[in-house]
């Protein structure tokens, strides 16, 4: 790619006393990319973001965001970025117009420019008719649109989205992601953090942090192929889970079993003899289970995440 990356991270490290929160992290994000950044609580995600937003100086290493060095020019970094979180970014007791006016002021806009930007943002969020409604009375999806335009008032090159759609109805969430993709096509770079991995599926590439280190970075299908190869089958029987578990206990090539409602989701190694719905149904029927049914299932980013965390921490999960 010939365009220079809009976020360029090299050996980025942050220590707090003896604790290394972020440990020599390297990655690039291209202009207009939707980049997902995942990690367990305490993995170093927030520390990374605070550094990239110019809020925290690195202990060593460098990062440039929209052309500005985060260590030497954090003020320029702050002017180039926007930040949006579903939960915290709006004042519920203010109207949409007041919220926008407040943020425009915080970004240093004054007078006619400020009024013009606020009007444009109200139009963009389709909130002109509701300008005097209290923000707390807006439906979740509308509030989210308002949060998005308020984070973009100063036209930032990079937008940080922190769990942007938690708790939003699925139809509003899809509309939100359509807006996000339109922004990306128009050149804005989106840096998304989330605990909900179905949301990460919308990202072009996903980086995963474990214990301060970036342990994987790839497209969602690439991550699944590399880290959880195999065949996933969802298995159910009228005989119940305990009977099913015991019938599966001596089947060769099973890498993992996970309860899922009345089903078990089973991961088989590639090429395992029973890693096929028809073969497994026949086997379970032969073991006397009532009405076994088996369906193909897909690997998820959650599978990837758990696999990588387990691999990095053989003793106990990063609860």
């Amino acid at each position, binding site marked *: 790619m010939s365009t220079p990356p809009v976020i360029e991270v090299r050996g980025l490290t942050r220590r707090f006393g003896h604790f290394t929160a972020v440990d020599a992290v390297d990655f690039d994000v291209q202009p207009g990319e939707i980049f997902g950044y*995942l*990690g*367990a*609580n*305490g*993995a170093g995600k927030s520390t990374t973001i605070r550094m990239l937003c110019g809020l925290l100086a690195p202990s060593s290493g460098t990062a440039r965001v929209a052309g500005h060095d985060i260590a030497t020019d954090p003020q320029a970094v702050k002017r180039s970025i926007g930040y949006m979180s579903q939960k915290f970014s709006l004042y519920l007791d203010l109207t949409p117009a007041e919220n926008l006016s407040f943020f425009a002021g915080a970004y240093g806009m004054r007078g006619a420019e400020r009024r013009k930007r606020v009007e444009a943002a109200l139009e963009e969020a389709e909130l002109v008719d509701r300008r005097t409604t209290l923000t707390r009375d807006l*439906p*979740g999806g509308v509030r989210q649109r308002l949060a998005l335009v308020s984070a973009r008032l100063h036209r930032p090159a990079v937008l940080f989205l922190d769990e942007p759609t*938690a*708790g*939003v*109805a*699925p*139809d*509003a969430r*899809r*509309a939100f*992601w*359509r807006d996000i*993709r*339109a922004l990306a*096509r128009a050149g804005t770079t989106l840096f998304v953090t989330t*605990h*909900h*991995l*179905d949301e990460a599926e*919308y990202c072009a590439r996903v980086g995963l942090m474990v214990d301060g280190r970036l342990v994987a970075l790839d497209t969602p*299908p690439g991550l699944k192929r590399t880290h959880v190869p195999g065949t996933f089958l969802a298995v*159910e029987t009228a005989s119940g*889970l*305990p009977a099913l578990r015991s019938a599966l206990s001596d089947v060769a090539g099973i890498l993992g079993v*996970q*309860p*899922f*409602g*009345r*089903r078990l989701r089973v991961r088989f190694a590639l090429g395992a003899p029973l890693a096929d719905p028809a073969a497994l149904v026949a086997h379970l029927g032969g073991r006397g289970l009532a009405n076994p049914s088996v369906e193909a299932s897909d690997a998820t980013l*959650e599978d990837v*995440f*758990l696999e990588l*965390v387990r691999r990095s921490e053989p003793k*106990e*999960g*990063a*609860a």
Partner: protein
Amino acid sequence: MSIVAQGLRRSFGREVAVDGLSLQVGHGELYGLVGPDGAGKTTTLRMMAGLLTPDAGTVRVHPEATTAGTAASEGLAIGTDAARAALGYMPQHYSLYGDLSVDENLTFFGRLFGLSKAERTTRMDRLLHITRLTRFRDRRAEALSGGMYKKLALACALLHQPKVLLLDEPSNGVDPVSRRELWDLLHDFVEGGMAVLLCTPYMDEAARCHRVGLLHHGRLLAEGPPGDLVARFRHPTVRLFVDNRDTVEATLAADPAVLAVSPEGPALRVVVRAGVPSPLARFGGRVESVAAEFEDVFLGLLRDPDAIAPARAA
């Protein structure tokens, strides 16, 4: 049935939060109340826990297994000591004492429930073991991660060994590792006979429940085992492969013959209204039939209240 709610209704001012809702959860059943923020999930759970008085409707608790068709007057009325003893409730924002340790929090809640020292010690050891918090028992609650804090809250709600457990968004703010741990724990509890009712805004969690109710604007849009609801969904779900994916998506999003559309890998995932001429033919792309998922069903129901065919009579 273990807990039975009938005709629950509750308004706040002019806002109707819960609008005539009935549901029941059996022993050994994991029931998920699924819906977006503002659907009425927390209000429902608070009424079922006896913390909020309904404007209308009743909640009864049956600590022992009963046969189907138990009269509404039987069982324990919510708010009685006996019902309280049978119920565990974990609110969304559980207030543990931040400056007390894990052990001290458990001891405090154990005393509130009137457990003897011997009972407390045995149960605390067991709960710390199954939540894998034993090695953190001296850590102050405020120094726990989100996932560990939730597990401690869960342990506190389980100290009095409830038969029915009500959980308000247990996976909210919990990272994926702790989240799967939490679900595995819940599956263990229901395999042991507990009735668990939880609510969640995440559609993908519906598939992990035995039975789900889809809540929207205080009413149940549909109820049943997740696999059944998907199987009874009337509208076809397809993948459409086109070159100009984003333009086509915008067009389809505004088409009344399309119930839902979103990008999926290189394709568009589309729920097409059944019984009308296909809105996809004009794009000329390859169309591939796929199995519906829970979110497809929910989105279909928002646009078509009859999107799920009636269950066949048993």
